[in-house]
């Protein structure tokens, strides 16, 4: 009798413990799950449904369009231009923002006394409100009042209307994008550099990697590989989401030269209320983001070489 009770007691207690764990587990994730469903999953479903209709916000009815919105978007010269502009922007910001940050990180890392000063200076734009700073940039680049043009004039160059010239507007926004991102990437690279053991540099020095180029090619660059990959992809995603500077500084102009995908989605969805069409555009936007993320996942898996 006693022996049976003793033998059966532990499993019963275990079962109870498992039940408690299940219920608390479910209870703990419930709020998160509800929010996930309400703010991400359900909206995605609704968005998908909207994208196959011609629904306009405020309207009473909507017709089923199938994939016509997508077909229209892919054929729309405005959207095509916006996608191309966005990709050009990414193509300028990524090399500038990643390799510039890498250079700065390598130079800053070896400073002893001035390191934290430089860190603060380069990081400052990350914490600043881009919209406010965009206004300042606008003034800085002003053709007649801005100091940048004044300096150009002093050097004997002509006046450049950076933001109102179709050929320079997008590149100018990209430079501002780099300005905003550089410190963030620098900090990530500094963390990556710190993780490289000092022993390796010393071994390399004895082995004959005396110059900076050799040291970089033999140790720093290969060992920084995973960090670099991560920084490239996050920079790509951030750059692809460009919106703020366009909305404040150029509004897509001049002559559509700075129209970017997210800005067009904003216009279609929240200004013109072509809700169905904007939903289809949003999925095109999401497709790009997912491709970038996938690149990261696969590349990082491969890069784990030690």
């Amino acid at each position, binding site marked *: 009798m006693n022996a049976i009770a003793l033998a059966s007691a532990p499993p019963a207690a275990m079962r109870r413990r498992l039940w408690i764990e299940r219920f608390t587990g479910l209870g703990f*994730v419930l709020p998160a799950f509800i929010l996930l469903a309400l703010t991400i999953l359900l909206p995605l479903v609704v968005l998908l449904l909207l994208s196959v209709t011609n629904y306009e916000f405020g309207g009473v009815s909507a017709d089923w369009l199938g994939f016509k919105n997508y077909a229209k978007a892919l054929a729309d010269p405005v959207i095509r231009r916006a996608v191309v502009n966005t990709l050009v922007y990414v193509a300028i910001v990524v090399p500038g923002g990643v390799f510039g940050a890498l250079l*700065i990180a390598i*130079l800053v890392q070896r400073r002893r006394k001035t390191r934290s000063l430089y860190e603060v200076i*380069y990081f400052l734009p990350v914490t600043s409100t881009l*919209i406010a700073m965009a206004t300042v940039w606008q003034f*800085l680049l002003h053709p007649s009042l801005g100091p940048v043009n004044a300096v150009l004039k002093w050097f004997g160059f002509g006046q450049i209307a950076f933001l109102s010239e179709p050929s320079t507007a997008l590149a100018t926004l990209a430079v501002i994008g780099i300005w905003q991102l550089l410190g963030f990437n620098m900090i990530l690279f500094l963390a990556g550099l710190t993780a490289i053991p000092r022993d390796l540099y010393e071994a390399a020095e004895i082995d004959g990697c005396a110059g900076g180029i050799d040291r970089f090619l033999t140790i720093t660059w290969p060992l920084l590989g995973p960090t670099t990959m991560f920084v490239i992809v996050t920079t790509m995603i951030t750059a692809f989401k460009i919106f703020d500077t366009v909305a404040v500084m150029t509004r897509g102009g001049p002559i559509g030269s700075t129209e970017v995908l997210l800005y067009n989605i904003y216009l279609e969805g929240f200004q013109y209320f072509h809700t169905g069409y904007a939903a289809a555009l949003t999925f095109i*936007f*999401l497709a790009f983001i997912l491709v970038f993320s996938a690149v990261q996942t696969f590349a990082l898996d491969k890069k784990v070489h030690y």
Partner: protein
Amino acid sequence: MAEIALPAAGPVAAPITPAGAIARRLFSLVLIHGILIAGAIFMLLPFVWMLITSIKPPSEIFNAEISLWPKQFYGVENYSFALSKAPLLRFALNGVILCVGILVVQLLVAIPCAYALAKLRFPGRDALFVLVLLGLCIPVQVPAMPLYIALAELGLLNTYFSMMVPFFLSVFAIFLFRQFFRSFPDDIIHAARLDGMSEFEIVWRIVTPSAWPAIAAFSVFSAVAHWNDLYWPLIVISDAKLAPPPLGMMFFADAETGSNYGALTAAATILTAPLVIAFLIARRRFIDGITMTGVK
């Protein structure tokens, strides 16, 4: 050089450092600092120009001649004009309310969820974690339109709630905290259970305090992101009284102040200052926070 001027100090010879090596070292130092300083000027130029312009009178601003320092101090006029034209302090307060509100809910929701994902066994755990990972790839601009429609239907546009609601769930926070909690020793949790603590107490009294660095890092990350976010407030807020700093700045720039750069830069200074000052005070926290949230 100084070494050569010194008399030979007894039998102990100083290590030989040929002049060529010194020159090379000097050259590389100059080159390194040259690059760094040039970059630093590029980074600082907007801040410096913002501060200078905000204390210049219009006559000097519109003068084609560029001067680094105003001849006439006009700061009081610019700042008081900016403050009188738009509720700048209200914008900043809105930013604080927005950031605090979002952060509190994010932590309350994400911490128990992350703990459950890291340490408890329950049905659907792995599926939920996959959803969290997928959620990491979805920027807020994607669900924005359905959320906007829902908020409009519920009559909730132009409220603090509408500004915060898409951010209440941070899948990133869940992911970050889960990674952190996983390395928390199971033995301590078992010991706490044996001592009669409930899971609720274990989360908030044992595990959460140990995750302080991750929480601080995430808080910095979250605050920087939401203080500076424009896209979502632009969509749901049209009432200037509720505008957070970026939207407020946009309203202010759109109003008749158009090309009054003195007032514009004064406003920009006021709206940028809180976060920048916070950064300058707690710069180690900021930098560590970005490092941790970035590298994972």
